[in-house]
């Protein structure tokens, strides 16, 4: 994306942000609350319009696409997914195939096969007939990820995909995603609050503050940067634990 700005009324939510994500890599956007992370990923997903600048996917403008064309290219995992009442897990994941079979036709054999595959890959097969409302937080998040994977897109946008999950489930979700990036060449743009996990799972980190891009670089460099500490307004220490960076805030 180039020179992206988004306004809501008189407030500028993000201003002149340019970044590009290589296919088959994982880029995570970090920054304090209100930095514009959600706005940025919603704009990339085509759910918001930018006041300036464009988002392109392999040269095609996202805002010029209709909903269906977009859904075939970008899958979205929202921060607070709406869990419908009384729907089975299988039917929920099948919603990811909507753009393929359309609104008037039933899912094809290929659609059903894809949903079956994704359920299996995410160990959800045993839950397929369950009501979505009966799942635990971890299972639910896996189900939302399954719906996005059923879209079989090359790009996935995730807004805080591990919010509210315990440590084990956080790692499980991120590892599933990492596997999709490495094995299937998925391109991921995510937002995360946890700096340690952000650094461990992304190829690249983008630091936003007050709607502006502050820093963009390899994970190891960004977590050690002076700018990161400045944005959060506190001292941060990075410890190397068996080759993995752990970011710790220092309290005075």
């Amino acid at each position, binding site marked *: 994306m180039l020179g992206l700005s988004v306004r809501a009324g008189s407030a500028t939510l993000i201003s002149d942000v340019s970044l590009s994500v290589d296919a088959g890599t994982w880029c995570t956007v970090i920054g304090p609350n209100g930095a514009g992370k959600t706005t940025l990923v*919603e704009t990339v*997903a*085509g*759910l918001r*319009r930018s006041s300036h600048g464009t988002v392109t996917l392999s040269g095609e403008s996202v805002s010029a696409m*209709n*909903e*269906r064309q*977009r*859904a*075939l290219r*970008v*899958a*979205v995992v*929202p921060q607070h*997914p*709406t*869990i*419908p*009442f*009384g*729907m*089975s897990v299988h*039917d929920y994941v099948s*919603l*990811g195939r*909507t*753009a393929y079979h359309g*609104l*008037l036709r039933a899912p094809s054999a290929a659609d059903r096969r894809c949903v079956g595959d994704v359920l299996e890959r995410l160990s959800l097969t045993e839950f397929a*007939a*369950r*009501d979505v*409302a*009966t799942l635990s937080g971890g299972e639910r998040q896996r189900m939302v990820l399954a*719906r996005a994977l059923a*879209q079989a897109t090359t790009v996935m946008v995730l807004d805080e995909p591990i919010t509210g999950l315990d440590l084990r489930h956080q790692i499980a979700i991120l590892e599933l995603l990492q596997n999709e990036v490495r094995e299937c060449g998925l391109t991921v743009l995510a937002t995360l609050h946890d700096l340690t996990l952000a650094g461990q799972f992304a190829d690249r980190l983008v630091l936003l503050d007050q709607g502006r891009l502050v820093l963009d670089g390899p994970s190891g460099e960004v977590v050690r940067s002076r700018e990161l500490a400045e944005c959060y307004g506190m001292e941060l220490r990075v410890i190397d634990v068996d080759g993995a960076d752990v970011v710790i805030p220092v309290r005075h």
Partner: protein
Amino acid sequence: MIATPPSGRRVVLVVGATLAALVVAMVCGLVIGPTSIATMRVIGDVFSHLGLGHSTLTPTQSEIIWQLRAPRMVLGLLAGAMLAVAGGTYQGVFRNPLADPYLLGVAAGAGLGATIAIVDVGGAVVTPSWTPILAFVGALLAVAVTWAIGGRGLRSSTATLILAGVAVASLFTSAQTFLQQQSSTTSLARVYIWLLGSLASASWSSVTLVLPYVVVCVVICVAAGRALDVMSVGEDESRSLGLPVRRVRLIVIVASSLGTAAIVSAVGLIGFVGIIVPHIVRLLVGTSYRRILPISVAFGAAFLVFADTIARTVLAPSELPLGVVTAIVGAPVFVIILSLRRPMAP
């Protein structure tokens, strides 16, 4: 109460029972009335019209069946089917369990139109024969104003639309109240009777008038079931899944409102069918609109014909207003359902 979505067998059972109820309702609509005619003779007469066997009815009895009861029964089927499917569709598109076909101002608009036709403010009477036309125009006008206020903006949401509907409905209702307050007691009574809804004036001509609207609108609403299922995850998420939310919303609202306006213009304001029938069906077959909407068509049709049979027989030869019967039957059923089910997610 429904831990897992209902099984296929249960759905088949519900569909079978609903269709059976529909057939029984149709027979009741033809057989029950002040002039008693044996059920088998009526059924024999129906078959004779299909070229099977011979009718044993007298010409007067045949006249009663085919010119009085049959058009009334058919109009009841159309009204029940349309109101029920429109209510279910509104509940889906607004993701609001309290939505009914009158949500966007159809009732208030039709009420104002009918009032203008019926009342005699300052000695001026438009003429009661204009009632259906003015009711139809009023209903569509109210929905159009609601849409113009709340449905067009770039980020317009269903919440804005519902609020616009509330505002428009209050405006039209107060205009209607003002006119009624200025009119004579006799015309006021006529407006009141119209507002409560009735199938008493049904004829084949009113059936043919509303039939095309109802058929087209019911087909569109039922076809929208899959889109409404996608919409159950909210507007932003359904857009990200490939649903053209704004277009679907417009098509579905136009179809529901147009069909409802046609029905209201012919039979007045019949309440409760549009809100309770989809809820009863949802309780029986789960939350998928692909099931709720088609089953509501048959269920609503049967329900209204039963209600009308009660309305015209309980106090015969005078009639109870149909809106009163649907509410007397509907309200307790609605309360029972609400106490049985888990709260519906917004």
